[in-house]
């Protein structure tokens, strides 16, 4: 059985893969996975509601999109985690990131990393989603700037670009 024990400093030692890099670190028992990721410098994952309602903190854990604010940091033990930084950057954006920018889906941008991670999860599972598939998948990612129309368009553009590859 795996056992995570507290060390002398009162921290729990864990190991996991973050965006392809092996991480060994110590976490507080009540630290959230979101706090840990941001502490490690991956600030693209946003802290919004902190109650699992807004989706700003969405990351992909072992291929599944989840909200990191509801998870304890020690949950990461042995897992493969991808954050928005793991998809691409300004010089080499992922097709989903490019589609969001090109379609004008981004206004203030705070919710976008979470939306993009959920979109990645959706397109990995369903490469040709219908409008209702997209709405159903993005129902946990809230945006206070837009009316969601452009985001749905962005997902469709991203899907067609990825399918052409």
């Amino acid at each position: 059985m795996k056992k995570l024990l507290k060390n002398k400093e009162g921290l729990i030692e864990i190991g996991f893969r973050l965006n392809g890099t092996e991480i060994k670190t110590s976490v507080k028992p009540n630290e959230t996975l979101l706090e840990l990721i941001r502490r490690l410098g991956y600030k693209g994952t946003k802290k919004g509601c902190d109650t699992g309602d807004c989706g700003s903190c969405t990351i992909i854990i072992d291929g599944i999109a989840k909200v990191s604010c509801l998870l304890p940091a020690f949950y990461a033990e042995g897992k493969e985690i991808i954050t928005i930084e793991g998809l691409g950057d300004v010089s080499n954006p992922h097709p989903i990131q490019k589609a969001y920018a090109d379609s004008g889906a981004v206004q203030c941008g705070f919710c976008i990393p979470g939306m993009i991670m959920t979109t990645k999860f959706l397109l990995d599972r369903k490469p040709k989603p219908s409008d209702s598939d997209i709405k159903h998948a993005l129902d946990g990612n809230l945006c206070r700037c837009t009316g969601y129309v452009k985001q749905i368009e962005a997902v469709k553009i991203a899907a067609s670009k990825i399918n052409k590859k």
Partner: protein
Amino acid sequence: MNNIKTVYIPQNIKEFSSVFSKKSLIMAGSTYSFKSFEKDKELKEIVSINNLPLKYIKKESNNIVIGALSTFDDIENSGLCKKHFFGFLSHASSYCSSQLIRNMATLGGNIAHPNAFNIMPVVMETLNGKLKVFDGKKYKILSLSDYYNERNKVLITEAMIPLKYDKNLFYFEKISRTKTSWESYITFSFRADVKKTKINDIRLVFGSVKAVPLYSPEIEKEMVSRDIKDINVEEISKKYSDLIYSVASSHKYSEYRKEVTYNTVKGFLKKIFGR
């Protein structure tokens, strides 16, 4: 939670039984547990059960069997759940919160933490489902109400849904005044077995009313084995509506929920009676 000394991650039930204690917090999908116990200073141990082999959906003898660690997303997208009960299980699961929560919340957790708005207890009660639980030494089978009497002493390992209701008529809906007025939500989960002009069996369950699902064997008895032309749909609907009203009388959406219940029950009965 800052006083946690050990996090156990058992890989099988045998390992789990060696660390299972009433004092430890069992954590699965974590949508409920972590935030609820974040400030608990008494907590010394966590048992993270995510690695237990309880994530499956299968057909076994006369049941659809769902492992306790199956998420709402697993159930929603399961071929078996789409195929049986006219997709009732799959459809009901799709109503759980958002995609991100459906990816995390488990069947076991949804049943283990009684909350009026939870979907799985309502679904289980509608389908007369049973729970297979582990008490640290042996397995046993419990009804939902028996489980709630001893829920702190056992771990849910799977839910068993009898296939004898496979060809019943089903209805599942969560209705609210607006999507954001969560206090107005009410869950309707109905099943009926109608043969020619008679009701063989019927179960009307209401969620979001009290901590555990609400249904009335007395009102159901009034309909069973009777010719549908002798059943006064308006009268039955009113009885259900009154039941909801009395339970939630202090609720600010009481009138709304009462009216919605009346109309929904009436609509369902009229539909199954072909009126």
